[in-house]
């Protein structure tokens, strides 16, 4: 995620410098050679494969175990039992077994690989707007703000909507934040380690089909293995026959799988999630008038809705490209015009493409003369006093850490730069737009701005960072900053950054 950001940042930097140095603002900057897809900067703790087509949770060990168990059990069945049964009874048995096996695998992979219904995190604008609304609501009470909840009446039942601090949204009803995947998931059922993914609105039907077909498969295998043993024991003896079959695995798993299928059949027919059932949200024990407002009234409709209802599309657009179709804005220096960009940039820590876009937009919005004014020079000038003059020293600071740690604003402190500067002095030279060091230039521009505006306020920065950042930041701010304006946005960005860092 960080690398993706840093590369995008480098791209922004490249565009900004080329615009400043030689070309007018309207000249389109050169596009990156390879565009980044949105999954590469996805803020949750998911793993993506096949260029964003496959989405899974971080921990996949148990999923591999599931696969191994199914494959080994079925493999043993087809190898040892099927030939005997096909000859003695009917060849339909292996065929049905094969069909069931394919169905189980298909539904398992579909459950594991699909997006469970992840809600994308709020854009910084949305988060700021919500915060404002909450503040307005809280200020009227006059005392310590209550926890962020909203009440809504659904079909006669009062439902509390909670505010998610990570995703900066009020969770829709039935949504829940999965701590393992660090995402809010719609109609969150549970996080299943066996399938290596959350089970939510978009993959619940696949999950149910999986456990249902798996229970049929397990019962099928168990039944025919026992048949095989019985038939063989007529000939050779019970114990001999027993050692040839995968009966043990089947025997233990059949109870748990069948039990789970039964449980989920009950949940589907009453239109509840595992989450709600465990909490007893709609249990009549809570109150006489407590009922499930989401139920359609009868079992048949509930089942049809859960299994055959419309399948909503994924809201996170994993394979979409991060839009980089506008010029970039320098995030530093001229605090007056670039203020908004910088602030907005800081607040984009949880959404790197938003960050990129904001700077691009502000760059576009700013007039060409202004754009030409803001440049690397102020950066160089301000940094030199702090570092005793060497541009390489300052910029290598930016180079080493910030590209990768940019979102969290935790670049290596200047005190640690000597080692970096020794390695990359030559990289500092082409700040003015040499093609092969554009990425370094980018690093120069972006993080410096962050140092200026970010670090003095940024709470979770490493201790080494703050001392280095603050003196410089303060001097910068004194010179260019207009703190009176856009305070709320800055606050939001800081809050966002604090939250992000604490995640």
């Amino acid at each position: 995620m960080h690398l993706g950001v840093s590369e995008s940042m480098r791209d922004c930097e490249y565009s900004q410098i080329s615009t400043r140095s030689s070309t007018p603002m309207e000249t389109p900057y050169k596009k990156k050679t390879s565009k980044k897809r949105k999954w590469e900067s996805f803020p949750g703790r998911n793993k993506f494969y096949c260029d964003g087509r496959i989405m899974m949770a971080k921990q996949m060990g148990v999923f591999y175990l599931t696969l191994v168990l199914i494959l080994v059990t079925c493999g043993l069945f087809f190898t040892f039992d099927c030939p005997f049964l096909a000859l003695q009874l009917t060849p339909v048995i292996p065929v049905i077994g094969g069909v069931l096996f394919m169905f189980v695998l298909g539904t398992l992979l579909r459950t594991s690989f699909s997006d469970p219904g992840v809600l994308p995190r709020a854009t910084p604008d949305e988060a700021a707007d919500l915060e404002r609304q909450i503040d307005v609501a809280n200020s009227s009470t006059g005392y310590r703000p209550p926890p962020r909840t909203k009440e809504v009446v659904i079909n006669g039942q009062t439902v509390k909507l909670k505010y998610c601090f990570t995703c900066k949204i009020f969770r829709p009803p039935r949504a829940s934040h999965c701590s393992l995947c660090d995402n809010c998931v719609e109609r969150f059922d549970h996080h299943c380690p066996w399938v290596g993914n959350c089970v939510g609105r978009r993959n619940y039907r696949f999950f149910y089909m999986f456990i249902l077909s798996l229970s049929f498969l397990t019962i099928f295998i168990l039944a025919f293995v026992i048949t095989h043993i019985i038939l063989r024991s007529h000939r050779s003896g019970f114990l001999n026959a027993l050692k040839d079959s995968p009966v043990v695995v089947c025997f233990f798993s059949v109870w748990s799988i069948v039990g789970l299928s039964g449980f989920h059949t009950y949940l589907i027919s009453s239109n509840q999630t595992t989450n709600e059932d465990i909490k007893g949200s709609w249990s009549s024990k809570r109150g006489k008038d407590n009922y499930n407002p989401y139920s359609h009234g009868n079992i048949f409709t509930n089942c049809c809705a859960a299994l055959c209802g419309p399948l909503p599309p994924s809201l996170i657009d994993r394979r979409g490209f991060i839009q980089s179709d506008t010029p970039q804005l320098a995030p530093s220096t001229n605090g007056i015009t670039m203020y908004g960009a910088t602030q907005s940039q800081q607040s984009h820590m949880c959404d790197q493409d938003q960050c990129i876009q904001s700077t691009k937009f502000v760059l576009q919005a700013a007039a060409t003369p202004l754009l030409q004014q803001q440049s690397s020079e102020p950066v160089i000038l301000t940094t030199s006093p702090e570092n005793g003059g060497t541009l390489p020293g300052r910029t290598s600071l930016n180079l080493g850490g910030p590209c990768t740690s940019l979102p969290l604003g935790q670049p290596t402190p200047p005190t640690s730069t000597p080692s970096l500067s020794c390695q990359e002095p030559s990289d500092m030279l082409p700040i003015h737009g040499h093609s092969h060091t554009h990425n370094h230039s980018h690093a120069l521009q972006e993080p410096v701005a962050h140092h200026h505006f970010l670090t003095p306020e940024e709470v979770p920065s490493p201790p080494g960072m703050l001392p280095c950042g603050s003196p410089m930041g303060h001097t910068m701010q004194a010179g260019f900053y207009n703190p009176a304006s856009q305070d709320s946005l800055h606050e939001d960005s800081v809050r966002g950054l604090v939250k992000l860092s604490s995640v």
Partner: protein
Amino acid sequence: MFLYVRKHPDVLAHLNKHLNFLRPHLKQPTVSSKVFIQRDYSSGTICKFQTKFPSELESRLDKRQFEETIQTLNNLYAEAEKLGGKSYLEGFLACLTAYTIFLCMETHYEKVLQKIARYIKDQNEKVYAPRGLLLTDPIERGLRVVEITIFEDRSIGSGR
């Protein structure tokens, strides 16, 4: 003077399309603020947006026009999520074909989403862009909000 700029990635893509409507003489209009129309959960988890007219738009837009837009959007989303014979048939067929049918066919929901995108584009061109506003398709915001970007009115003389 400072430039209060609100950033938004998709606005830029929209701007390139709507420049003629907004400010023919300017390359990029300035974003003044954004209004977010939140979801209305009173009918359950179906996608529905609040029809309450935001005060920030009072000077720019007619209340009736706004309500009509939101209501049409709500109706379209309800159509997408409708439980009926057609959706059940589609779901059942998909299950039979192990969901491979969707490799060559779009789901009903996706078709309606395209319809919604066309409607929003149409509304932007006809109603919102001439008033210096821009509707963002809710799908780009994860169906959480309808984002309306208010652009600075240059004719008033405010600006940088």
